[in-house]
C-alpha cells in the first residue's frame, strides 16, 4: 500500500465520500427517494442532486484555488452551502 502515498487530508477526503455513499444508501433503504423537479432544469432524485452538488463543489474549489487568492476553506463553505441548497430545493 505504500506506493499509494496516502496523506491524512486525502484519507479524510475519501472517507468522507465513502461515508456519504453509505449514508445515501441507508437513507434510500429507510425512505426511498421520489424523483421531483426543483429549480434544476431536469427532474432529479436525491442521488442526482448529490452528484451535481459534488461536481459543482469540485469546480468551485478549482476556481478558488486557481484564479483567486481566497482561502480554500471559503470554497469548502460555499460548496457545502450550495450542496444544501441543491439537496433541499434542486
Amino acid at each position: 500500500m505504500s506506493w499509494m502515498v496516502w496523506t491524512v487530508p486525502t484519507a479524510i477526503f475519501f472517507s468522507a465520500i465513502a461515508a456519504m455513499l453509505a449514508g445515501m444508501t441507508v437513507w434510500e433503504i429507510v425512505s426511498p427517494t421520489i424523483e421531483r423537479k426543483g429549480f434544476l432544469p431536469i427532474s432529479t432524485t436525491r442521488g442526482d442532486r448529490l452528484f451535481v452538488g459534488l461536481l459543482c463543489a469540485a469546480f468551485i474549489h478549482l476556481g478558488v484555488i486557481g484564479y483567486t487568492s481566497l482561502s480554500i476553506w471559503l470554497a469548502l463553505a460555499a460548496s457545502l452551502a450550495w450542496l444544501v441548497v441543491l439537496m433541499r430545493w434542486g
Partner: protein
Amino acid sequence: MSYQLENTQPGEKYNTIFSRITPAQRRKRNARTRLRSRLLLGIYLVLMILPIYWLLNMSLQTNSEILGSMTMWPENLTFDNYIGIFTNSSWYMGYVNSIAYVLMNMLITICVALPAAYAFSRYSFIGDKHLFFWLLTNLMAPPAVFLLPYFQLYYSVGLFDTHIAVALAHCLFNIPLAIWILEGFMSSVPKEIDETAYIDGYSFPRFFVKIFIPMIRSGIGVTLFFLFMFSWVELLLARTLTATDAQPIGMIMTRTSTASGIDWGTLAAAGVLTILPGILVVYFVRHHIAKGFALGRT
C-alpha cells in the same frame, strides 16, 4: 393502418410539406441520383483505401526502391520484409503477445459483463443509474490519467510485464462498453420470455445459458467485435504495463527506427500485418454489424 410521420401534425397534408413531382420525372431522377451516389461512394472508398494501399505498396518494396524513386506499385516485388518478420521471434512474438492479451480481455470482459448487463436491463436496484453512469465515465477517462498508478499497481501485485496485466487494464474501458452494448440488446428481448422460463421451472443460471444467451447471439458477436477493436488498437496502457515478455506489436514497431535511419519496408509490412486480424474479425461479424452498431437502441 396509418403512417404518421414524425414531426408532422395529425391530419397535416404531406403535400404541403413535400414537393410535387410526376412519376416519370421521379424515375429519371431516381436513376440519376442512384448513379451519383454510387459515384460519390466510390470516390470516398478510393480516398479511404489510398493510404492503406500505399502502406501495402511500400511493404512489398525493398528499402532502396522506396527511397530511390516514386513508384505507384512495386516494380521489384519482394516479400523479404514479411519473411523477415516471420523468421524473427522478437517480431512475431509481438503479434502473439497482442493477440494473447486481446483474447484474455475479451474472455474476462464478456464473462463479467453478461450478468451485469442482464441486471441493468431487467432490474432496478439502489443506485443503478449512478452505477451505470460511473461505468460510462470509465469509458471516457483518458488512459493517460491512469498511466503512473497503473504501473505502480501492477508492479506491486507482481503482474507487471504479463499478458494478464494488460488484459485487466483494458477491462477499464472494455467492461463499461460491453455492458452498454449488451444492455441495449437485452432490453430489446421481451421480458415475457424470462417469466415463461421461470414458470417452466428453469433456474436462473440454466435459463441464462440455455435460453437467453442464444437469443442475444448477434449482440454478443457485435460486443466481441468492439472488445477486440478497442483492445487491439490501444497502445498507451499496453506499452506502459509491459517491458519485454508481453510487449505488444505496436511497441516493437518502434524498433524500425534506428541510428542508420528508418527501415521503412519492415515498418510497412508490420503495419499491414496489424490490419489483418481486424479484417478477419469484421468478416465474421459482417451480418450483425449493421444492426449491432446501433447498439440495440434505435
